[in-house]
Each structure stands twice: as structure tokens, then as C-alpha cells.
């Protein structure tokens, strides 16, 4: 097994023992990126030089016997949505193409404090809106298992880089499934923690009541390690939870006894691919063989989850993205042609004596906003801003936004009732395996429905994890999703580890990438 195929936990052991240096490890990943990323396209920017400098610094301090952080010398990729003052934060958008954050997000600051080596920034759907990474303004990311297919999204680069051994760990964000879905489609582990478990300070906001940062990894042990590094209360984020962070990496290997697993009746309905269903049911049998009891539960309002989500998330997005005004930061339209265009329109209206048109004509400031935003945002971001603005506009607020907030509570209450009977809920991550690039770009609603099994955890604020549980006949990964009550990450990880220990799905590697 080559170095880049070993787990992060194993690499840390070797680094601590002095078997390898951080520079060697970082170089091994940079070489791997060189060899395969021209095919996969996971990284927007590889920060090779900076990474090697950080690695050399760790090696020097280790040699001198100085104290080192928990992840000292370990390369980590970060989704290009978390502010890092050392690089750009583009959100894969023309709007932020040259945005250089003046401060570090809390997650990035914690990674730096842990002496992780920040190896590069990964591709994503623009502003994390999408489920295929096709909405990136800059490049396509391909699924390492089949380069004709998408890696999922929005954390598509984050999942693909781990699946193709270009980073041992990566950071993603999950607003409606954006960590779990690409992890599932790429055959790796991806976890969305409880809302508030990880600080959102310095995370470029999409839908603030749903966004959560989390780890993507090869193994549950590695995911546990990264989660415990980034989790915790942050006074800079008033929604972060003031709760002690357990040492997940220490407890993850302990099996749970008397585990009660719930299967959601509504998850196994029309639309679920037969191969996916078979793999998930097989995974449940593995749990039974490990002593778990399985019980059917019902989440009667889960069928409304996607509709609820596609009101709440766009409403919050339209409000959050109002900040991109071409004034404070981000793209601004070229003023001269903008002013000329406006003058020409005014002249035309005056010549026609169109008083109503003249009254409606944009002021220079409004036109500057409108042109800057229209040039800076891609089609999906515009679509969601329009959807949110529509749903929040006068006369529609009660019918859409307020209604969705009420259904959101019913969805949460369903989970509360289910978790009265079972410890964890198991089911598919997605109804299908990875879809082809371009397959759904013309059908936004079909694309939204891919989020069917993942959005509920965001609406309810629950932790969820995706782990590999099989492959389709075509050789595409299938993901198992486990969900837990709020703050039950520890049992979620332990349960995931039980499955991982009894199976070898996490050890499979894409075969057609260069060795």
C-alpha cells in the first residue's frame, strides 16, 4: 500500500515515530495531485509551496522537541468557502474570483493551530448551491470512479480529492446534504455534525440556519479525528453550541451494545434504485449480525422535506447574498459601459416620451448593483436568489416562508418521536448512484429531488454520516446514511465504525486512475 493510501490516523503515527517527515508526506500528496487531478479536477488551487513550507516548519519543530498540534504535518484540503487569510476564498464564483479574506474562519484557524498542512482549496458548486459541482464557475470535477459522472456536490471537490487519494482528509460544508451526498457518490466517509457543533464564523453563508461544516475522510476514525479538531464553542458564532467536545477519536472504536436501529418506512418507496436498496438492506443485516435490533419507524412529514428546504434555503440565500453589492468586496461591473448603457436607455425613453418608463428606469446605483450581481453570479445562484426573493415578496411570505417554517417543526417532531424508539436511523444517502455530467443541468427540480434523503437532517439540525456500503454493477459506490439525535455524534461515529470493521467497502479504490 502506498503512503497516500494509508489512513490519516496511520500517517500521524508514522509522523510521530519519525518514520516519515511532514515534507515527505506532503510531497507524496502533491505528486499524487500532479498525477491525477488533471483528470479529476478536484482542486481549484493547489497550494504546494505554502504546504511544503508549513510541513518543513512542523518537521523543524518536531526535531527540536517542541510541542505540536493534534494534526501536525497532516495534509488537509479545504473547500473554497471557508475564509483563510493566506489564500483566496472564491466560493467557485466569479463574484469572489479575487476575494482575499482579511481574516481566518474559525475552522481554518483551528486547523492551523493543530499544525495541519493546508494543501489546497477544493472545487464546489457556486456558493455551495447544487448537488453535482457542475455549478462551479471555474471547472468541472469528475467522479474518480467514473470520469463521465459527477462526484455529487456541493462539496464535490472535497469528496473527489479524498476518494482519489489526493488528500487524507478534507473539509466540506453541508446545507442540504453537501457533505454526505458527494461522500456517498464517491465511496468515502462524510459527516454533517449537529447544527452548532462546528463554528460557522468565516464560512461564507448560504443558508445560515442550515449550514454546517464537517469532515470528509477515508475512515470513520479519521473523520472522528478531524471533527474533534474543528468542533467546539466559538464566541464569534452566536449559534455555536456551548458544549464540551468529546474525544471522538478515542471512543470511535468502541462498539455500541444493544444498538437500536430505525429504518424509515418512507425511505424505501418509489424512486429508490433497486441496487441501492439492496446494498442498504444488506448493511442493515450486517448491523443485525453485530447484535443490533432493527425496527421500522415512520417520518410521515419527510415527504415534504425537499419542498420545505427549497423554500427556506433560497429565502435565507436571497437575504445572505444581498451583501454582494459591488461596493464592499466582490465583482463590480465596469462603470463606463454601465453609465453609457443607462444614458442610452434614458435618451430612448425621452425621445419616445415614455414618462412611465423614465420613472421606472434604474438609478445609477441600482443599475450598478444589478449589473454587478448579474455578471458575478451563475445561473443556479440567480435561480435561488429569485426563488427566495419571490417567496419572501409581499403577499407570499405566509404562504411559503412561514408555512415552510411550520412544516420544518413537524419534520423535527417526527424525528423526536422516532428517536424515542430507536438510537439511530439508517437508510440510503441518495436514491441513485452517481449521475452523468450534464444529465440534469436542464432540470433544476429533478436536481433538487436528489436531496430527498439528506435535507431532513439539516432542517432538523441533526448529525448524519455517509459511509460506503457497496457498489452497483456498474462499479459505482453506494452510501449508507446514519442519522442521530442532536449532539449524538459519538454514538453515530461508533456505529459507523462497527460497520466499517465488519466490511471492507472503505478499502476499495477507483481502478482506472493512474497508480
Amino acid at each position: 500500500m502506498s503512503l497516500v493510501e494509508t489512513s490519516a490516523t496511520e500517517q500521524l503515527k508514522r509522523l510521530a515515530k519519525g518514520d516519515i517527515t511532514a515534507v515527505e508526506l506532503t510531497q507524496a500528496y502533491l505528486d499524487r495531485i500532479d498525477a491525477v487531478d488533471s483528470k479529476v479536477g478536484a482542486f481549484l488551487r493547489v497550494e504546494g509551496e505554502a504546504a511544503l513550507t508549513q510541513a518543513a516548519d512542523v518537521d523543524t519543530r518536531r526535531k527540536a522537541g517542541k510541542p505540536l498540534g493534534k494534526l501536525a504535518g497532516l495534509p488537509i484540503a479545504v473547500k473554497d468557502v471557508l475564509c483563510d487569510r493566506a489564500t483566496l476564498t472564491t466560493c467557485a464564483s466569479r463574484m469572489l474570483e479575487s476575494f482575499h479574506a482579511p481574516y481566518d474562519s474559525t475552522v481554518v484557524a483551528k486547523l492551523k493551530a493543530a499544525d495541519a498542512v493546508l494543501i489546497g482549496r477544493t472545487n464546489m458548486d457556486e456558493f455551495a448551491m447544487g448537488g453535482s459541482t457542475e455549478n462551479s464557475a471555474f471547472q468541472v470535477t469528475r467522479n474518480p470512479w467514473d470520469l463521465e459522472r459527477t462526484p455529487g456536490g456541493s462539496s464535490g471537490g472535497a469528496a473527489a480529492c479524498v476518494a482519489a487519494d489526493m488528500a487524507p482528509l478534507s473539509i466540506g460544508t453541508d446545507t442540504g446534504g453537501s457533505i454526505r451526498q458527494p461522500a456517498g457518490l464517491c465511496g468515502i466517509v462524510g459527516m454533517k455534525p449537529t447544527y452548532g457543533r462546528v463554528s460557522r464564523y468565516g464560512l461564507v453563508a448560504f443558508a445560515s440556519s442550515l449550514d454546517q461544516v464537517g469532515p470528509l475522510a477515508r475512515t470513520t476514525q479519521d473523520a472522528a479525528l478531524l471533527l474533534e479538531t474543528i468542533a467546539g464553542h466559538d464566541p464569534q458564532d452566536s449559534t455555536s453550541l456551548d458544549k464540551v467536545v468529546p474525544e471522538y477519536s478515542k471512543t470511535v472504536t468502541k462498539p455500541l451494545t444493544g444498538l437500536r436501529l430505525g429504518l424509515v418506512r418512507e425511505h424505501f418507496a418509489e424512486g429508490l434504485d433497486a441496487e441501492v436498496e439492496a446494498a442498504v438492506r444488506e448493511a442493515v443485516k450486517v448491523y443485525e449480525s453485530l447484535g443490533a435490533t432493527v425496527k421500522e419507524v415512520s417520518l410521515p412529514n419527510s415527504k415534504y422535506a425537499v419542498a420545505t428546504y427549497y423554500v427556506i434555503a433560497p429565502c435565507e440565500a436571497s437575504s445572505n447574498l444581498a451583501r454582494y453589492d459591488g461596493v464592499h468586496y466582490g465583482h463590480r461591473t465596469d462603470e463606463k459601459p454601465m453609465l453609457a448603457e443607462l444614458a442610452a436607455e434614458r435618451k430612448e425613453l425621452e425621445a419616445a416620451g415614455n414618462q412611465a418608463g423614465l420613472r421606472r428606469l434604474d438609478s445609477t446605483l441600482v443599475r450598478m448593483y444589478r449589473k454587478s450581481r448579474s455578471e458575478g453570479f451563475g445561473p443556479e445562484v440567480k435561480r435561488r436568489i429569485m426563488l427566495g426573493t419571490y417567496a419572501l415578496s409581499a403577499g407570499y411570505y405566509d404562504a411559503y416562508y412561514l408555512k415552510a417554517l411550520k412544516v420544518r417543526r413537524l419534520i423535527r417532531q417526527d424525528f423526536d418521536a422516532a428517536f424515542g424508539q430507536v438510537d439511530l436511523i439508517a437508510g440510503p444517502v441518495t436514491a441513485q448512484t452517481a449521475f452523468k455530467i450534464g444529465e440534469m443541468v436542464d432540470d433544476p427540480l429533478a436536481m433538487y429531488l436528489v436531496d430527498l434523503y439528506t435535507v431532513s437532517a439539516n432542517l432538523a439540525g441533526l448529525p448524519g454520516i455517509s459511509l460506503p456500503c457497496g457498489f452497483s454493477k456498474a462499479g459505482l459506490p453506494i452510501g449508507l446514511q446514519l442519522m442521530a439525535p442532536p449532539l449524538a455524534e459519538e454514538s453515530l461515529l461508533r456505529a459507523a465504525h462497527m460497520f466499517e470493521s465488519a466490511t471492507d467497502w472503505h478499502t476499495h479504490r477507483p481502478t482506472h486512475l493512474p497508480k
Partner: protein
Amino acid sequence: MAITRAYVEKVSLLARLQLGEAELDRLAGELASIIGYVDQLAEVDTEGVEPMAHAVEVHNVFAADEVHPSLAREAALSNAPRHNDRGYLVPPVLG
């Protein structure tokens, strides 16, 4: 609820987006299809249900009333498309 093209155009102004004719046509259709799907929420009985705006319903998180350093002006202006070292510059607002 029907979504007219004229209303989509009005929403584009509210959203501070400038959309071309083709974009407005396309969006009117797409929004109609998405809203058509979302309209199923109307069938849910939510009588007496409190809206849930946040997953963690914390209220009144207080911070100590202490002065902390904030972003320096130079840093705050560093990404501005136009500035004069003291503030942000915008196109003429009056006239």
C-alpha cells in the same frame, strides 16, 4: 399560484439582478415548476404549529460589554472594487 413573467421581472428588481429577455422567460418557467412542487406544503395541517426558524432554538446570546479590536480600515477596504483609503466609492447617487 401562477407566476407571470411581469412578476418575475419585478422580482428581479427586488433581487437587484438584471436579467435578459431569454433569462426572464427561462426563469419564469423554472420558477413556476419549482413553486408548483413547493405548493404541496399547502396540504399540510399546520394549525397551531409554531414556526421553527432555527435548528437550535437559542435566544438572547449575550456577550460581555467589552471593547475588542475590530478589522483595521485598511483590511476592510482591501477587497473593495473602488475606495479612496478612507471609504468605499460608488457611482454618483444624485443627479
